[in-house]
């Protein structure tokens, strides 16, 4: 039953992705100033949004783990799996942002990279979660999950600080397009395409997240089965 649901969902996601791709490449109009390359926005922005969401999932998982680890060990394991899946998939999407951004920047600004707040913020975010994954790799023994959860909380603390500093001075990176002040906003045709791509990427991201979560859960369950076997043998 669960398998069928996931299969169906995956099919929908693929359809959405194709539709989004079609929209982005063939339907959306060229940008007035940047021309063709502007289309990268349909990958850049959704990936960033998805990454942010998943880091939030990771934070929630970390907090969940710490609060349940004594009282409901089983639930805590689930929370930990969410924390790990969120961090891992989030890092992947964040990497996409960090790759598409410079590609775009090379054309738009003539340079690959600059140290403005938005870019630095994103890079720091990526670094923090990579260090989280490294901790999970290097730390040994049963305390890994606890330590990782603690680091997850610390990392998340950092994000708003870095993020706020964004608001405090001008950036080279485009200002918020949506809900910004004067002169923000984009053409409705583009907006629609962006909307479709957003949807497609979210759907896709959530699919990967859930799959990763299940793999991790299966991993945990296998480990405990193996453990039970070891106890028998």
């Amino acid at each position, binding site marked *: 039953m669960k398998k069928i649901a996931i299969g169906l969902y995956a099919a929908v996601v693929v359809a959405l992705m194709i539709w989004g791709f079609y929209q982005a490449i063939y339907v959306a109009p060229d940008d007035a100033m940047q021309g063709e390359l502007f289309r990268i926005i349909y990958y850049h922005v959704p990936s960033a949004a998805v990454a942010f969401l998943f880091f939030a999932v990771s934070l929630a998982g970390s907090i969940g783990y710490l609060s349940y680890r004594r009282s409901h060990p089983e639930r805590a394991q689930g929370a930990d799996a969410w924390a790990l899946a969120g961090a891992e998939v989030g890092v992947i999407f964040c990497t996409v942002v960090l790759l598409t951004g410079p590609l775009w920047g090379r054309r738009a600004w003539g340079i690959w990279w600059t140290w403005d707040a938005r870019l630095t913020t994103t890079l720091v975010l990526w670094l923090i979660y990579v*260090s989280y994954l*490294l*901790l999970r790799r*290097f730390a040994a023994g*049963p305390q890994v999950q*606890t330590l990782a959860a*603690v680091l997850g909380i610390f990392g998340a*603390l*950092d994000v708003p600080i870095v993020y706020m*500093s964004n608001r405090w001075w001008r950036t080279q990176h485009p200002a918020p397009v949506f809900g910004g002040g004067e002169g923000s906003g984009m053409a409705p045709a583009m907006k629609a395409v962006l909307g479709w791509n957003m949807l497609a990427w979210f759907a896709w991201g959530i699919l990967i997240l859930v799959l990763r979560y299940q793999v991790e859960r299966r991993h945990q369950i296998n480990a405990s089965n193996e453990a039970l076997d070891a106890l028998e043998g």
Partner: protein
Amino acid sequence: MPRALWTHLVKDLRIEWRSLDAIISMLFFSGLVVVLFSVAFDPRGEFSQRIAGGVLCVATMFASVSALNQAWAREIRHNVMDAQRMVPSPGAELYLAKVIVNFFFVSIVQVILAPFFFIFYNLHIAGQGWLLALVLPLGTWALVGNGIFFAALSITSRNREFLLSLILFPIFIPALLAMVQATTAILTGERDPTLWIKLLAGYDIIFTTVSLLLFDVVLHAE
């Protein structure tokens, strides 16, 4: 002040005092770092005033990290950490004592090295110099506070020394940024450092509070 905090402080200070190793090495090390940076970034150039803030902060950072790596070495050596786990007094005090002691040492090193730094880089302070006495301690506290915490967090891992830097640096970047910007603003006198100082203070308060709250979790992780 809680009694246990005091006990931890006295113990650490006594051990340090007995050999003076940590402080002497840190002093020499920081001196070396300043020299190395002078070799690497020729301070005769026209932009020395611009990079001096960065050099000062990065030098502080590397010198402190070497100290931080050793911060729990004594506890690790003969599993003293297990003894600390068996003791009923709260872990937060153990943490705080370590932070204070290390903050104290790094500060001493800074005070001693500052004049040399000014001489090597031919600096003159264009802004309000006394603000430096606020920026440097705040930045150092951010570094040491987080450093001690993450050093404890990485005790049980393989690759302990490395892991500390790997975890600490990303989280420390905002504080470093604020510290560098504030210092440069003060040295060049071109901008107003207040915003950065506030950011630094906020960072310190948030992170120290959370560290105090979570240290027991880390100490009794298994």
